[in-house]
Structures are given as C-alpha cells and as structure tokens.
C-alpha cells in the first residue's frame, strides 16, 4: 500500500468524525432534560415540579413568559431561601439557558399569562412616553426613575432595566407592582415608556451640573437656602466688616 493511499484511508474516518461533530447539535430532547434538571434544582423546590406553587412559593403558571423572563433576566430569581429579598442581581443563567428555561416553564400544563413584549424603542415617542410615565410610573418610581419608598417596601430604581424588562414588568406587575394592561398602556405605549425611562435614566437633563442624586426639589431647595444663602450672608458680613475699618467710631456722648 502506497503511503498517500494509507494517508487518505486514515484521513477519511477522521474527516467524517469532524463533520459529524460539527453537524451534531444538541437535540430538543437533550436540551429539555438539561433545563428540566435546572428547573427541578433551582425552581421546583418552592414553585413545585408542576409550577403550581407550594407553601414555600407561589404558582408561576399565570406569570406568562414575560413574568418568567423578567424574574430570571433581572436575577431576581432564583433565590436560595424563600425568605430572601427578591432583588435585582446578576442573572444566574446565560441567555441560551435562560431562553430554554422560559420555554420549559411555558410548556408546563396550564401555563398562561402575557407573552414577552417585543419592544422597539427606535420608533418610540418620547413625549408620549413622558405622559404615560408621569401618569402611571412616576408616583412610585419617582420623576427621575430612581425609585422611592412605599408602605411595605420600596420601589426599585429603573436605571439598569432593559426596555424589554420594563415592558415585561408593566404587563406582569412583579411583587407589589400593579399590572398595566392594554387598557392602561397599549403596545405602542410600552415602547414609549421604555424609551422615556431609558432617556431619563441614561441621559438626565441635569442643567445645574450636580443633580444631588435626583432626590428632587426639596433637597435642591434646602441646598439653595442653606448653602447659597449662607455664602451670601458670609459675603455680606465680609463686605460690611471691611467697610467699617475705614471709619472712625463716633465718640459716645458727643452730642
């Protein structure tokens, strides 16, 4: 056997193998088993293997794909104990796993709820977004999107929320937040609010230079009164003191 032929014979199965590996993609069945394992490990402890909830956690069957995606993509879920605060964290899963997990939860029997909104902030109207934001959002999340105090807990700042997450939160109403349905904000309105929120959190119009952490008009007024008026008073005193140095103090009883 000549050496080129032997090489060719050796190379053929190798090449076939490479092609097979490249062409092989994890099938749906295999991916689902992985996701199912993750679901049972991270979610089912509280929400139940069927998603109906347990004494440790609520049902997730009515949260919709929007709700599942919101909680997972903002890192609010999973939490390690049911008593942990549900707060924004780095998401635990990479985007592909996250999508597969959302698909898996959505495939549970009896799953309903809003779908993930498709948000297009490129064609959104900022003025309309401002109107809707001030009417529906500003009461809790503050005019600046910095969030604020509520009765039982606080409403979170919006500066890290993506447009999709903002739209999801409005449709789902996570935690104590009310749901903003089609009657309150239509699909175009979701785009507008998401765009406006991004505008005020990413490019706030801080004309004074130092925004005072966007605490609002009361701290701004306090700074103006105490710092500004204080400086003016001190300045007035300096001017007055210097002026009297040049004058002779009239003698007492000179009338």
């Amino acid at each position: 056997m000549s050496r080129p032929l032997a090489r060719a014979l050796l190379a053929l199965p190798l090449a076939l193998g490479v092609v097979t590996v490249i062409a092989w993609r994890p099938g749906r069945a295999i991916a689902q088993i992985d996701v199912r394992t993750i679901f049972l490990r991270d979610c089912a402890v509280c929400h139940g293997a069927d998603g109906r909830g347990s004494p440790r956690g609520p049902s997730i069957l009515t949260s919709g794909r929007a709700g599942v995606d919101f909680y997972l993509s903002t890192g609010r879920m999973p939490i390690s104990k049911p008593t942990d605060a549900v707060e924004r964290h780095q998401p635990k899963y990479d985007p592909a796993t996250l999508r597969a997990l959302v698909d898996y939860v959505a495939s549970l029997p009896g799953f309903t709820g809003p779908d993930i909104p498709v948000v297009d902030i490129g064609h959104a109207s900022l003025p309309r977004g401002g109107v809707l934001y001030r009417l529906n959002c500003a009461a809790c999340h503050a005019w600046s999107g910095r969030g604020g105090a509520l009765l039982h807990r606080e409403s979170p700042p919006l500066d890290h929320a993506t447009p999709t997450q903002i739209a999801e939160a409005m449709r789902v109403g996570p935690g104590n937040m009310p749901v903003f349905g089609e009657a309150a904000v239509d699909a175009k309105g979701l785009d507008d609010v998401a765009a406006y929120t991004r505008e005020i959190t990413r490019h706030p119009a801080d004309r004074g230079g130092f925004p005072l952490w966007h605490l609002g008009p009361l701290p701004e007024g306090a700074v103006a009164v105490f710092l500004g008026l204080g400086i003016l008073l001190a300045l007035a005193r300096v001017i007055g003191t210097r002026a009297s140095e040049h004058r002779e103090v009239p003698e007492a009883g000179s009338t």
Partner: protein
Amino acid sequence: MTRAERLAAAAFIVSAATAIAVLVVYVQHPDPQWEGALLGIATLAFGAAFVIIANGLLPPGPAVEQRERFGADLDEREEVEEAFERIDVLSRRRFLLGTAGAAVVAFVGVAVWPLRSLGPRPGNALARTPWRNGLRVVNEAGAPVVASEVPLGGLVTVFPEGAVGSADGQAVLVRVEPQMLKLPAGRESWAPDGLLVYSKVCTHAGCPVGLYEARSHELLCPCHQSAFNVLDGAHPTAGPAARAQPQLPIQIASDGTLVALGDFSDPIGPGYWDRPDHSQ
C-alpha cells in the same frame, strides 16, 4: 490714578468681559453651567468694584450733623394752651362724633363691599363631579376601558367620557379577586368581576393617590403616606387621612366597556366647611 481707582476699573473690565463671554457662550455653545459661572463672575466683579469705590474713594465717615433742639420754649407753650382753652369743644362734640361715625361706616363699607367680588357661593359644586349615570369610563387617551383589558392586579387611571384630565373626575380603576372583597353594605354590585373605581383625589389634602401596592391591595398617597384598603371600600389604614376614598358605582356594558352608574359615593377630596357628611 490711585490704587483703588485702578482696582475698581479692573473689576469693571472683568465684569464687562465676563458679561460679553456669557453672550458668546449663549450664542456659540449654550451650556447652562458655563453661563451661570460667567454670569456669577460678572455680577461679583460689578459688586466688588462698588465695594472698592466705597472703601477707597468715597470720603471716610462718619459725617455728623448736629440736631436741632427738641420742644418749644415757654412762651410758645403758653400761647398754645390759651388757644386750646378758647375752643368750645363741648358744643361741637355731637356733630364731631356723627361725622366720625359716618367716616368709620363709610370706610368699613368700602373695605367689606368688595368681598362680593369673591363670586357666587359654590353651592354643591364641590360635592359633584362630572361622573353621571351612563357615562363611559375612559383612559387618559380618551379610549373606553374594556373590562377584559384590565388584568388581575391591574391599575388604570380613568376619567369620565368627555372630561379627560378633569381634576375632580379623575379616578383609579383596579381589579382584585372578587371573593376577597369586603365592600360596605349596599355596594355589592359596584365591583363587577372585582373591578373597583375610586376617586384619585386624596381625602386628606387632595394629592393624586396614584401608588397602588397590588399584593397588599392598598392605595397609597405619595404626599403624606395615607394608605387605603381597596377591598373594604378604601377605608384609610395608615396616615393622616380620616375618610375613605369615594367609590364610583360601575357596571360592565354588553360590549365589555365600563359604564358609570352615577357620581361618587361621597364628595371627593379634602373636607370643606359645609361638606355633606353622610358617610360616617
């Protein structure tokens, strides 16, 4: 030229230059912070120039002017006393009192009469809102609210049809689980499918009650933290508000839209002096 003169002139020049710089910045590259800083320097320099002039150029004081003696001398005093005694005060007192009274009455009348300009009495205008039986419930865009578009836990700011943006007609629409409702007697039919409409004007100080905590079913007023439980007729659960938020009776029409069945259950907003009090 003295040192003070030179200093004052320099301050004036600085003021003029920075003032022109404000204009240049304004025209060329508007930036409120630069404009503010330059305008500040211009005013400060202008003021400083006058301080320098006052301290360095004006004659130093104080200049003392002798005051004239107070009081009249003895002759003058006696003359006045005599003249005073000559006047017959008693015989003219009645006439004097009369004229004084007329002057007082005229003066008070003139002062009180313009109160009429405060306008006609409000009557029961404060107790009524634009809501009427049969008016449709619309959102801020004027679109009728369809019951199916308000999900459980949902919140919509609503207005009476034809009065979008009305200050006293604004209301909040929420949807709760119907079996959780504990509405006061007589309001059983006011919350079809768990849909509740309450006035958005706080009964404490009139702020918009726009915060809704869906899980605890509480409306919250941002001004003074009054909380109202929507399940039991929006009675206050915390904060300074003493009265419940008035509820609007509604029903779901055959086309799925929401229709008001009348005005609010009580006059909306904070109390006023002749507010009809038939709730408590």
